[in-house]
């Protein structure tokens, strides 16, 4: 078991004929992800070559899901059209299967488009949105696995650590840190750095708590908003597995956007200090330096009798 995405999940790629979509679709097939085709309106009936094999393209998500019974879709559609791509996928999954996972990689989607898209997805309770502006989700397998996104597949290995993070490259750091102490990952979820997104920290923590494969969790946040504080408070009451945490942006000046649209300290709120304090109050073991996540994780595993 892993969370939301099993190793053999069937995955569609929206925007598969674009440069980004095709490049990453190829990398996903190379990793072992079961890509079943893609969707680009206006290009239905064509095929796309990935790793020397031909994959079908459909006009619409309804056609694509009907034909493939896909479990998930990953979106590489440019920002002006990405929110609609999310809603198209949500509608198709909901009406055809009653469930499905949508992973949106696109960075730079207008916030008000996301406000609409998130409300649309929330009206379809079986459908889960991960992202946007995220590296995606990966469930490493014993060989291959399901890599849905842009993360470098080869740094991962199947294991028992669940990782959830707002940042892409910091997730990779966290993965490398687990590997440095000979631990693999159950599922790694990048929830994205936008102010308005789909799946949040709490849903990830809840899923990891219920997942039998996951035995410990790494949670990585960053400045802006109060999702980390709420998640920490929730975890204190609801999560029994050890959690290790880090928050990026302790040195970020107030009022400045640090790369991610959501990474901004406004009105003195959303600081790293505040978030670390919330983590500690919830009994989360904190690393002040991401290169120490492995060390802190190892200590937590030992304390919990898992090593």
């Amino acid at each position, binding site marked *: 078991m892993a969370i939301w995405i099993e190793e053999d999940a069937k995955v569609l790629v929206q925007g598969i004929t674009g440069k980004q979509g095709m490049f990453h679709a190829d990398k996903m097939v190379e990793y072992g992800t079961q890509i079943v085709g893609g969707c680009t309106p206006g290009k239905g009936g064509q095929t796309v070559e990935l790793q020397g094999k031909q994959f079908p393209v459909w006009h619409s998500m309804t056609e694509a899901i009907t034909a493939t019974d896909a479990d998930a879709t990953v979106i590489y559609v440019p920002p002006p059209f990405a929110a609609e791509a999310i809603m198209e996928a949500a509608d198709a999954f909901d009406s055809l299967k009653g469930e499905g996972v949508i992973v949106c990689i696109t960075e730079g989607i207008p916030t008000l488009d996301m*406000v609409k898209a998130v409300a649309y997805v929330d*009206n379809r309770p079986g459908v889960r949105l991960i992202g946007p502006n995220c590296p995606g989700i990966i469930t490493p397998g014993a060989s291959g696995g399901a890599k849905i996104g842009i993360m470098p597949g080869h740094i991962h290995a199947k294991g028992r650590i669940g990782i959830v993070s707002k940042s892409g*490259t910091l997730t990779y750091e966290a993965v*490398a840190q687990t590997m440095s102490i000979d631990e693999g990952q159950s599922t790694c979820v990048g929830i994205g750095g936008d102010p308005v997104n789909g799946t949040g920290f709490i849903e990830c923590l809840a899923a990891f708590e219920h997942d039998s494969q996951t035995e410990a969790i790494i949670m990585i946040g960053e400045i*802006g908003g109060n999702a980390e504080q709420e998640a920490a408070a929730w975890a204190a009451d609801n999560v029994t597995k050890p959690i290790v945490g880090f928050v990026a942006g302790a040195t970020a000046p107030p009022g400045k956007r*640090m790369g991610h649209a959501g990474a901004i300290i406004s009105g003195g709120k959303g600081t790293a200090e505040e978030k670390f304090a919330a983590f500690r109050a919830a009994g989360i073991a904190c690393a002040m330096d991401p290169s120490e996540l492995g060390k802190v994780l190892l200590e937590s595993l030992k304390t919990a009798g898992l090593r």
Partner: protein
Amino acid sequence: MLLRDAGVPVLEGVHCTTVDEALNAYDALGSKVVAVKSQIHAGGRGKGTMYTPGTKDVVMEGGVKIAFSKDEVKTYASNILGNLLVTIQTGGEGKIVNNLYIEAGCDIAHEYYLALLVDRDTKSVLIMASTEGGMDIEEVAEHTPELIHKVVVDANIGLLGFQKRDLGMALGLSGASLKSFGKMLSSMYTMFCAEDCAMVEINPLVRTGADEMVALDAKVSFDENAEFRHKNWDDLRDLSEEEDTEIRAKETGLSYVKLDGNIGCLVNGAGLAMATMDVIKLYGGEPANFLDVGGGANEEQVKTAFSIILEDQNVKGILVNIFGGIMRCDIIARGVIAATEALSLEVPLVVRLAGTNVDEGKAILASSTLNIHPADDLAEGAQKIVALIGGEQ
């Protein structure tokens, strides 16, 4: 002005950039009492302080003044234009005021606060209003949050009549003022969505003696992600207020924020870039900047990134921290070498590479004759650069 175009009642006013224009504006408005307002992209102006830019001498308390005569307009306009305004939101360095707004006076019965913003918690547009209008909304939020009333708009339905009435009644409005408030909210919400705003703040919003609601001062910020569908935004920007290098970085697809320290950073990914700054500080150094080269930077972007970092005279050393995902470490290594050669880099350089093709990347750096210090992880990289610049002092 955006609000007026959207149908929100505002006072008559004139935008000026010189004292003479301000005096002409006073005559043209024909109102004995006028407000003289600094126009910068930050709030808290009324409670701010004006300073002389070089010497930092205090010129005047307050960046928004009520003038009762033409002479007072002259005094206030001279004190504001070209000087530095420091407010609770500008940070210590303040902002030079190049623009003034001279506004006709009005008969104020009560001042309110009104704001529309994208709320991260509810993932919706949130409308906030308070009877405590004027200058201290941050304090109201901190000390008496119960005086702030909120409604959350369902994005796929829009602002509803009862929501407008509820909010107006919470402010104690009734009759003509309640009606005027509702009409204003509708116009503002339509504008908020049409213009892709991130926040619209009206402070103060006033009820006049004639029970009309009028926006006296407003601050509007936009969602940068929506820039592609708003060509008109360029006209609203005051580039002189923005950091030149930050604008240039953005044009090259880099994300750069200047800070006060002396260790330049070049990193891929926003989260890792923040973490790199944090770790430099943790090991006793001070970061000079935030710089995210993004997920797919090429050699040219790496070079631009170096030149932007080196323009900052404070920079005494540079830490490059790359976790190659899609981006390959060998490409980054070549970019780093090309950039350091082209820019004849003199400050110490520590490079930490990890991820895809890391061994090739390290080999390329090791074979170069340049003075590049390798590091295996972030902590080692930060410690090395801190030690290297410490050694030079």
